[in-house]
């Protein structure tokens, strides 16, 4: 229910904290601008080159189509798995989040091995008389693969928002004679706006920064152009210049998001009642089929290919194994990063939601900018600043966690913001008027209400940190192997059987993390 914006001056330390977090998150864009500035007049020439403009066009096309597709897929899927009597709903949620566990450097290769010419799909279809499969290269392949790998950014946010939605509104609509269908479009969907908006921004920024899949699928967006500058000439300046349009596109996306999500508030006024699940009736099994269809590209294909690697490697006597240390290292780093990003997102979300004026909103939006940059640029930016200005801390666990938090803060931020929007400030005001301090009020009144949504954001950070590569390679303590480094080290040299086990365990851990979060949330809500 949209409510008027409330004037609410928060304590200044919050603003200060928000400013510090914003400054940290702006390190990668600052680095990019710094490096690009060194190029001088070459900037205009490089950016106006026909190849750059063509790549820009492809980037815009791919970003808009993939984001739209993800919204169309994730919203109904979120509704099916949280609001209906879909068989095994919780397990579906865990499995549907799994594409997030596929590292970008594996995703493209796996897709081509499975769906490309002479790949597994073709082998399967050949006995049926199918000689050729449609080409996976170019726009359609990139669209399919990126949509299949990135919809969970939206899906997890939508699920979290749906679980938090006040059922009273829903019941009121139904009792006023609206059909289930009308209720969804007139009540539920508008309530989902902040979540869709936050998730959509993450998908769009992900597409901008994606390298592994688009380069395998031969759809050259801007990010591969940045990589070419790095890999062929080690030219950090020229690479930064190619990254500038990404920042501009990010600004447009973030601005568009501000427009979509509007100034509304979304909180329940009354005591919450438990949500009722909609019976699907004869649509139950078609709904299951829809879930399977969505999973087919993003989960079934990678898992099949990886299992095939494992089986084939074992058959040929390849060694395989997974040091337990890899699991604990990854869990530790990802857990700490999730907590750090979750905590850091609080002051930013607070100033954006609870403060009058544009300052807070600007800070919160600026925090997203870095997310559009290629992963290697972000890693180099952090190397640059930490090695030069905080060198005793360089390549320690603390700095690795800091780097992850900077990289993935936007993933937590959207969820935290959505959570805060769903908290009715009346409760806080009541506590304050009874003489309870600001911090205590936050801890006792606000935080418990925000917990489910914030933990969805932290989960997202946790899942993506587990597969993060360039930052881990450059900034981790020496010898600190994670899932991502282990998988990369094997696949980059064609030891596929060796990569299989860590890749499968990574997916298993991701699924478990989702299940644990759902379980906690059910306990909290009950």
């Amino acid at each position, binding site marked *: 229910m949209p409510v008027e914006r409330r004037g609410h001056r928060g304590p200044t330390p919050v603003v200060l904290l928000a400013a510090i977090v914003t400054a940290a998150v702006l390190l990668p864009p600052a680095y990019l601008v710094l490096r690009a500035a060194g190029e001088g007049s070459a900037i205009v020439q490089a950016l106006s080159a026909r*190849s750059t403009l*063509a*790549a820009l066009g492809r980037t815009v096309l791919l970003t808009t189509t993939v984001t739209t597709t993800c919204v169309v897929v994730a919203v109904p899927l979120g509704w099916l798995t949280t609001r209906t009597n879909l068989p095994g709903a919780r397990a579906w949620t865990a499995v549907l989040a799994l594409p997030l566990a596929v590292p970008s450097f594996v995703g493209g*290769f796996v897709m*081509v091995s499975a769906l*490309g*010419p*002479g*790949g597994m799909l073709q082998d399967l279809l050949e006995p049926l008389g199918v000689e050729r499969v449609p080409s996976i290269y170019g726009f359609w392949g990139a669209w399919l693969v990126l949509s299949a790998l990135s919809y969970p950014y939206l899906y997890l946010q939508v699920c979290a928002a749906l679980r938090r939605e006040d059922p009273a509104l829903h019941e009121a609509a139904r009792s006023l004679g609206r059909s289930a269908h009308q209720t969804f479009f007139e009540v539920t969907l508008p309530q989902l706006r902040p979540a869709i908006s936050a998730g959509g921004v993450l998908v769009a920024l992900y597409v901008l920064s994606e390298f592994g899949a688009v*380069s*395998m699928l*031969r759809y050259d967006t801007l990010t591969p*152009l940045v*990589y*070419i500058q*790095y*890999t*062929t*000439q*080690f030219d*950090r300046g020229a690479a930064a210049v190619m990254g500038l349009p990404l920042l501009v596109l990010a600004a447009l996306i973030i601005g568009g998001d501000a427009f979509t999500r509007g100034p509304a508030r979304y909180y329940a006024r009354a005591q919450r009642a438990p949500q009722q699940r909609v019976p699907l009736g004869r649509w139950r099994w078609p709904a299951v089929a829809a879930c399977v269809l969505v999973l087919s590209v993003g989960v079934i294909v990678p898992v099949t290919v990886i299992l095939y690697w494992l089986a*084939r*490697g074992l058959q*040929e006597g*390849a060694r395989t194994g997974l040091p337990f240390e890899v699991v604990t290292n990854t869990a*530790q780093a990802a857990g*700490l990063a999730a*907590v750090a990003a979750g905590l850091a997102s609080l002051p930013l979300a607070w100033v954006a939601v609870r403060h009058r004026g544009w300052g807070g909103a600007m800070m919160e939006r600026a925090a997203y900018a870095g997310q559009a940059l290629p992963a*290697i640029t972000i*890693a*180099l930016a952090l*190397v640059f600043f930490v*090695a*030069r200005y905080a*060198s*005793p*801390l*360089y*390549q*320690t*666990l*603390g700095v690795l*966690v800091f780097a992850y938090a900077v990289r993935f803060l936007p993933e937590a931020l959207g969820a935290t913001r959505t959570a805060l929007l769903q908290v009715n400030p009346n409760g806080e005001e009541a506590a304050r008027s009874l003489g309870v301090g600001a911090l205590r009020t936050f801890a006792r009144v606000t935080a418990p209400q925000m*917990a489910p949504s914030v*933990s969805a954001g*932290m989960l997202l950070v946790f899942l993506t940190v587990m597969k993060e590569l360039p930052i881990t*390679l*450059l900034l981790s*303590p*020496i010898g600190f192997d994670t899932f991502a*480094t282990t998988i990369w*080290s*094997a*696949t*980059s*040299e*064609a*030891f596929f*059987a*060796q990569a299989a086990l860590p890749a499968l365990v990574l997916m298993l851990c991701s699924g478990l993390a989702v299940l644990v979060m759902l379980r906690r949330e059910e306990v909290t809500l009950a």
Partner: protein
Amino acid sequence: MRRPTIILLLLTAALGLATASCGGGEEPLTIYAGRSQTLIQPLLEQFSKDTGIPIKVRYGDGIDLALGILEEGRNSPADVYLTQDVGALGALQAENRLQPLPSKILEQVPVAFRSPDGLWVGLSGRARVMVYNTDTIDPKTLPPSVLDYTNTQWRGRLGIVPRSDGFPEFVTALRLVKGEEFAKKWLTDLKALSPRTFPNNIAALQAVANGEIDVAFLNHYYLYRFLDERGEGFKARNYFFDNGDIGGVFLVSGAGILDTSKHREAAERFIAYLLEKQSQQYFADQTKEYPMIAGVKGDSKLPPLESLKTPAIDLSNLQDLKGSLELMRQTGILP
């Protein structure tokens, strides 16, 4: 999340910081290794065992590590940088980040396989080859020169990896040996046949084996990893240009010592160790590369080094590399 959990996590972080910053004991040699951990870790550990010098190794992509060293600036913890790709050594050299190696190390390696300024040295060698699909291609019918692959019969059948891993170095060799105009025409003709481009050697090799393309112009040693994992039934093999053709241009992996290294003596010992006979034999046996020193036998599956012609050019020269990339861009081979 509950408060005790958060406090616990923060404590763990603090502990991590504390233990990381108070090492103590003998200072280890820090190696940035842009080569496969699986392949070279045993060798590096053997070095530590044999010499008693403790080592810390950061494994990663050679290009990322070189870029990392450049951004680390004076505070780089790296003593030695090891890579697959001499272009990366060239990048460090261009920013004056390498220090000269002693002549007793340099002299072990033929002039063509080390930096003319004595700033890095080759550790192992790889040849450019044409990988072909064993179902569709009879190797006897393959052209003996890479220059003949601009014939229209190869339209859409050839794969290349233009972005890294040897192709730009090949173009440099082509320009230096045959001249700028010739190279330009060859690349233009090649582009007209719409070669399939791949982001790396492994993807291209896989495409040859799947029959997506018939041949691909790659480095020789990736094939052996596939054969190990997939057995002899794997449908791709190497065609070596062992007749002195420029297609067989020889590339090296190499190593150099960083200008900021505080452990110069240990670093030199490390590089010297990698050039000793048993290390060179390790490269030949385990990574199926060519040894750099005389008296070490290469793998029996490979044609002997003497049969491959190597143009004497400095493939780490970034100026030359820039020219090649520019030409590749002009001719549309690179976007």
